[in-house]
Structure formats: C-alpha cells, structure tokens
C-alpha cells in the first residue's frame, strides 16, 4: 500500500488524466499532496495505459483477424456489386420478375432471377421441412434416450454424414435415390396432383426434380441441424431435469418441460444454418436437377435450376464480362439471401439468449 497512486484516493484515480492535462482544476485543490510526487510508471494505477508486450502483440493479431474477415466479406460484396452493375444496366428484361435467364449474348442480355429464386427457395424449404423434425428426433434420441455407449458412436456417424462430399450425394441422389422414390412420386402425382406442389412436372426425365433434390439436400443438412441441436440439448441444466423428474414427469414430459424450452432457440438457429447451407449447395443440385426451357410451376416434380446450379452449369461457357456479370448479379442475390437467413438465425439466438 505504499504506492501513492493507491493511497492518494481520488487523485490516484484522476492521475493519468492529469498528466494529459485534461482535468487541471480537479488537481489544484489537492496539489502538493500526492500529485507533486513524480508519477510512478503506469502499472498499478487505475486506468493504466501500460500493456505488456505479449498482450499488445496478441491484441494486434486478434484485432487484425477480426478486421480481416469483415474486410473480406465487404470485399466479396463489393466485387459482386461492381461486376453486376454493367449487365444490369443493359438488361432488357426485369431482373427481379423475369423468369428467363438469357445471358449468353452480351449484345442482347435478357435475364431475370424469379425462377432461380423460386426453385432455390422451394428446394431449400422442402429440404428443411424434411430435415427439421428428423434432426430434432435424432438430437433428442442422442441426448435423452440413447445409452451413452450407443450415443457416442451414433453421434460420430451423424457427424460423418457432414463429411461426405457433395458430389457423392449428387450421384447417389440421381442414380440411387431418384429411381427408388419414383413410384412414390408417381403416386403423389396421381392422387394429389390437384395440389400445386404435386402437379405434373415440367421435365421429362424421371427423378431429376426438386423432389429428389430436396430429399438429398435434407440428408446433407441433417448433420448440421443434429450436431448443433444435440450440443444445446445436452446442456440442459441437470437441476431442471431433476426438478421435473422429482415432480413425477415421464421422460417425454421432462423433454417437454425442460429440454425443449431450454434448447428451442438453439434448434431454430441450427435449422437456419442448415437452410443457409441448402440455399448455397451447388454440385449435388447441378447433377440432380434437369435443365428445362419451361418455366417453374411451383411443383416438386419440376426441374429447373437454383442460383448456384445455374451459375455452375453456365459459367464454363462464358467468354465476356457482361455475360459473366449477369450471373454474378444472380450470385449477389444468393449472397444477400444467405446473409438474411443467417442474420435471422442470429436474431433468434440473441433474443432468447437475453431471456436466459
């Protein structure tokens, strides 16, 4: 306690500022007591500016990394925007409402993203509708029902699903899954064809449809939803679970009273992350979805192209900046869409985080 900056009370606090000359008047009344002593090195005084060198280096690295990722995202957005503007100015069709995407001839650009947007959203939402309940069931099984020696390997197995390359999923979808589910697809088309989702499709190739693609996508996003939900559910406080058990709750009631309210937000955000993945998935959909000149009717048995698959299919043939820019404009919309979905997921997490 011999350090004058500590024993000096209020002046000790004011000292660093005094030396910068910002609070001269505050220093005057007590001048002559501790303030006249030569100020010791900064460490130890409150609000010190001295930082250890290692700390400074680490802070520089960490801040640098943070700035880098922000700058990178900004640069990607800027690149997309700059490339997209010239073709948009020469576009003969309405970019947002036109259903045709004709960008091959730079002198006659006529492209709109409506069909791409609709196919992308429908296939992703369909995948999500399939994967969400299944992912929830798996996560609950792994955390609440499965004995530990089953849960662990089973969990690894689900995680492994995320490591399967997209191209494998695409090939499997087209050559294995599509023929296998064809009878069911036909059945739906026959019996529920009056409903727009199941009306006859616009492609001749059996199985090369949104229906098949959605199921494949569901399998692909399942590990994301399952892994994150599992982590969240497993963190349900033991005290809450015991409270429910002690009241005479069955296993299912314990889940409903404690695990589900606790993990709901995490599950929703996991699903949103899965949706983000589905929206951007490229190669599997490029393989599965049949190209068609006809417009998208909204049926699951339609073919067509998503943003990503359209770009992947066409990009190799592009030979001028304007045509390329047209596709980049489509890419920009996908970028924004994914961004919005992720922002929504963040919002859901934060909102419930503040409550807990």
């Amino acid at each position, binding site marked *: 306690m011999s350090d004058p900056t500590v024993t000096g009370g209020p002046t000790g606090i004011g000292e660093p500022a005094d030396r910068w000359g910002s609070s001269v008047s505050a220093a005057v009344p007590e001048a002559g007591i501790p303030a006249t002593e030569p100020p010791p090195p900064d460490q130890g005084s409150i609000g010190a500016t001295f930082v250890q060198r290692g700390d400074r280096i680490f802070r520089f690295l960490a801040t640098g990394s943070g700035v880098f990722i922000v700058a990178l995202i900004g640069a990607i957005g800027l690149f997309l925007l700059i490339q997209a503007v010239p073709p948009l100015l020469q576009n003969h069709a309405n970019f947002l409402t036109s259903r045709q995407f004709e960008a091959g001839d730079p002198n006659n650009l006529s492209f709109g993203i409506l069909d791409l947007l609709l196919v992308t959203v429908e296939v992703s939402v369909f995948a999500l509708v399939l994967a969400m309940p299944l992912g929830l069931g798996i996560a609950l099984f792994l955390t609440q029902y499965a004995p*530990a020696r089953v849960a662990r390997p089973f969990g690894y197995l689900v995680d492994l699903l995320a490591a399967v390359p997209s191209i494998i999923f695409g090939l499997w979808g087209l050559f294995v899954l599509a023929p296998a589910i064809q009878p069911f697809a036909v059945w739906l088309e026959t019996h529920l064809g009056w409903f727009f989702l199941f009306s006859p499709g616009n492609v001749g190739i059996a199985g090369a449809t949104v229906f098949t693609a959605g199921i494949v996508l569901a399998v692909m996003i399942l590990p994301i939803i399952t892994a994150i939900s599992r982590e969240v559910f497993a963190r349900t406080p033991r005290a809450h679970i015991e409270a*429910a058990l002690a009241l005479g709750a069955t296993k299912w*009631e314990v889940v409903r009273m404690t695990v589900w309210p606790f993990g709901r937000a995490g599950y929703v955000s996991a699903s949103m992350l899965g949706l983000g993945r589905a929206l951007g998935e490229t190669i599997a959909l490029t393989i599965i979805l049949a190209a068609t000149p006809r417009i998208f009717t909204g049926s699951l048995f339609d073919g067509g192209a998503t943003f990503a698959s359209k770009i992947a299919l066409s990009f190799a043939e592009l030979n001028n900046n304007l045509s390329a820019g047209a596709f980049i404009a489509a890419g920009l919309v996908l970028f924004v869409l994914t961004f919005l979905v992720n922002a929504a997921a963040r919002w859901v997490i934060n909102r419930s985080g503040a409550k807990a």
Partner: protein
Amino acid sequence: MAKRLDLKDVNIFYGRFHAVDNVTLSVAPRSVTAFIGPSGCGKSTVLRTLNRMHEVIPGARVEGEVLLDGENIYGSSVDPVGVRRTIGMVFQRPNPFPTMSIRDNVVAGLKLQGRKSRKELDEVAERALRGANLWNEVKDRLTKPGGGLSGGQQQRLCIARAIAVQPDVLLMDEPCSALDPISTLAIEDLIAELKTEYTIVIVTHNMQQAARVSDQTAFFNLRATGEPGRLVEIDDTPKMFSNPTQQATEDYISGRFG
C-alpha cells in the same frame, strides 16, 4: 396425506461402488427427520432413494425395502414416476423452471397429473404459495418468470411446487445451504408449519438447523474413504444432541471430528 416411511436393510450402489450399507430406520407421519453427517457419507443418497430419484443416475441401484405406509415403493409393479408424484422433493439449489411463470411453476406437478381446470389450478397455486409463505410477496406478479425472484424466494417457490400436489412425504436435500441466514430462518419456520400436514425428511450440514427443526435425527458416517456410508444411530433429536449412544455421534456433534 402424510404417510409413514420404513427403510428395511437398504443397500445403495453406484455401479459396483457400494455407497450406503444396510440402513434400517423409520419415519413417523407428521414429523421432521434430519439426516446429518460428514460429506460423502451417503445421507443425500439415502434421501434420493426415498422417491426413487437415485436410480435416474446410470448404473445406480437399490437393494432392500422402502415401505410407504407398508407398501414397498421398490415393488416390481410400482411405477417410479408414480412414486415421485406422491413423494415431493426440494433440492439444494433452488431450481424453478426458468421459462415458466411463478404460477405455472407451482402447478407444474398438477398439470403432469392431467389436472387442467384453470380455476382449480389457480386455487391450488394460491394455497401452495400461502403454504410456502410466499403468497404476499408474489401475488401481484404470478405471471412473471420464477427466475426473477431472490434465492430464498425461489427456494420457497420450489417448496410451493412440491407441496402443491399434496405429497405423502416431503424430502429436502440441504434446502438452505445456498441461502442467507434470513432466508434460512424463513424456510425453517416454514418447515415447522409444514410438519403439521406432511412427513418431512431433511438432509442438512448445519447441526444447529437439525437441532432446531427436527423431531428425530439420524447420524450417518463412513469408516474410511472408499467404504460404504452407514447409519450410526437414529434417535429423538434432544437425546441425540445431549446424550448420544455412540461415541462417533458425540464426536461429530461436538466438533471433535477428524
């Protein structure tokens, strides 16, 4: 309503580990029984066998009989969920359901039993909260989450939740160890009131508390680490604290304990 508990030759295990050895004791209806003893002696474990909460830990099992008014709650046709509905439990740390309102916390047990009438649930909530000496403090914010209450209030909320179903027995596992002295006093007063209606078993580390609230006291101990815990003696509380039969009890109570 308040029932009698009899333990006969109860042995408790965690997997292969023999945690508690051969406990036999009786708890009279409408009385308070305190379990005291050093940490790790198995008193909480014994308490958790009384409502079959012990077995929710993987590998845990119980041998012997626990009779609730003569009926073995470990009988082969007895549903543990049903046992827990008639034997309430209050935990060491207050654990209200964070996403539920105060009222919903109190009636959670009734809802599990399928009681849905809003009027009935409201009445029970009020009765239980009054019973837990909490009504006056929360009656204007019944729809607010229970997590917003102070620690002592949360613990009384948990007691209200446990008595809302009018259990045959109320088990309390160190209910005051996370509370300040004033909240502790409030809970002790409450225990004294509750014993007119309920059979209460309380685990406590605080010997003054055991002396204040209980009618009979059971002292648990273990011979050495790694050995199973055992019941050293059980007797009327005044006798246990003034003239215990066993030397070990006297050593523990007087603080001369290794």
